[in-house]
């Protein structure tokens, strides 16, 4: 298991957002997390690379125990890539520099190697012609694809996606999902919080339905979408499908 989560609880002040999550993800598996807003899906995802800290529970990811005494969080994040809903590319740097920054400074890769890696990744996401422009000139879908390339540049073992297409125009959503599909086919372990049920059905190995801080139901896409067992799952799916 590349990710194990045991008894994860997370509160913001008095508000308990995660009420005990247990989960496992195998290597190469694509896990999609769906559920209504406020269910804690993003918080759960952000706990996986400790962008959100937690005091109760245990998370082991890519061999790192997040709350272990000797764990270096920066080392964890080298192995865990994350793509955000709002792309958050660095606006003061060109696209290729955005991708090269972390490998050079964190990974100590040489400039030439970093550039070669960056161009290869831009090729993978279909944007080699945009290497030397600034992010402000790109569309949302293009920015997100660059963001995926930037996360992949650190050669992570796990990729986390936090509603990657929620802020995109419908026309560009497809381009980003295609890149994610390609990644999944190549065997990347992925945890994707998404509202794109079509993507989840097609690409996920397993789907998790979360509501109110707990995993209500989980199973294969067929299990969840075609024969949901729980009432809450059924009513949620009725609203979104």
């Amino acid at each position, binding site marked *: 298991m590349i990710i194990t989560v045991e008894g994860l609880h997370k509160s913001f002040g008095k508000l308990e957002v995660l009420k005990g999550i247990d989960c496992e993800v195998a290597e190469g598996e694509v896990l999609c997390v769906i559920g209504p807003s406020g269910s804690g899906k993003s918080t759960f995802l952000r706990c996986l690379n400790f962008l959100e800290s937690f005091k109760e529970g245990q998370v082991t990811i890519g061999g790192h125990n997040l709350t272990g005494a000797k764990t270096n969080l920066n*080392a964890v994040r080298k192995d865990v890539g*994350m793509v955000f809903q709002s792309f958050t590319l660095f606006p003061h740097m060109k696209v290729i520099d955005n991708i090269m920054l*972390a490998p050079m400074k964190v990974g100590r890769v040489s400039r030439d190697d970093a550039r070669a890696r960056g161009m290869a990744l831009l090729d993978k996401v279909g944007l080699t012609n945009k290497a030397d422009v600034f992010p402000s000139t790109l569309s949302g879908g293009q920015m997100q694809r660059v963001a995926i390339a930037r996360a992949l540049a650190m050669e992570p073992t796990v990729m986390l996606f936090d509603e990657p297409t929620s802020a995109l125009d419908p026309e560009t959503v497809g381009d980003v999902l295609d890149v994610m599909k390609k990644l999944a086919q190549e065997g990347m372990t992925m945890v994707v919080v998404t509202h794109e049920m079509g993507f989840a059905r097609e690409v996920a190995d397993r789907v998790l339905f979360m509501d109110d801080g707990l995993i209500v139901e989980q199973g294969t896409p067929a299990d969840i979408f075609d024969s949901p067992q729980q009432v809450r799952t059924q009513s949620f799916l009725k609203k979104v499908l």
Partner: protein
Amino acid sequence: MDFVQFLPPLLRGAGLTLVIVVAAGVLGSLIGIVLGTAKASPSWIARAISSIYVNFLRGVPILIILLFAYFALPLILPSLTFSRGFTAVMGLSVYAGAYIAEIVRGSIQAVPKGQSEAAEALGMHYFMRLRYVISPQAMKIAVPPGIGFLIALVKASSLVSVIGFVDLTRAGRIVTTINQQPLLTFLIVGALYFAISYPISLLGRWYERKLA
């Protein structure tokens, strides 16, 4: 009385004002960048020390800082006697540092949180994030208020005249006691102050355009 003979002392005063403003601007910026970054840092000690300095110095009039530095410090410790010029620059720098610190802190905190998170998610530690991602963006945000403060500093510098330093204001006052022409003299003094401040705002506009 021929006014032209009074221009050299006024110009000399203007020159000295420019010198102390630049010196205080540079020193104040160094102090301000260090303290402002400290105030925005995750370390509570850094924040606390910086807050004490900033809050204290922003709560006291610059005039009091200058008078204290020149008249009171030597009474505390005789070795703390400095020349008027040195005291002027020191007082203005310490004052500027407090205000610039707040500008720097605000600029750092104005950079969208997502930027810091994205850098953090890539494995960058705090100082790396600050250096490559946050600071370049914060600097752009800091320029308008920073320029505004520098212009205010030019005007605040006129207070050094009370400790006897012969800046543009004091030069103007000395000249009027001799030529009894306050209208013309202070018009010229005002024009000279404008000649010093206006290029600063132009510099700001140029710098903003360059960063865009």
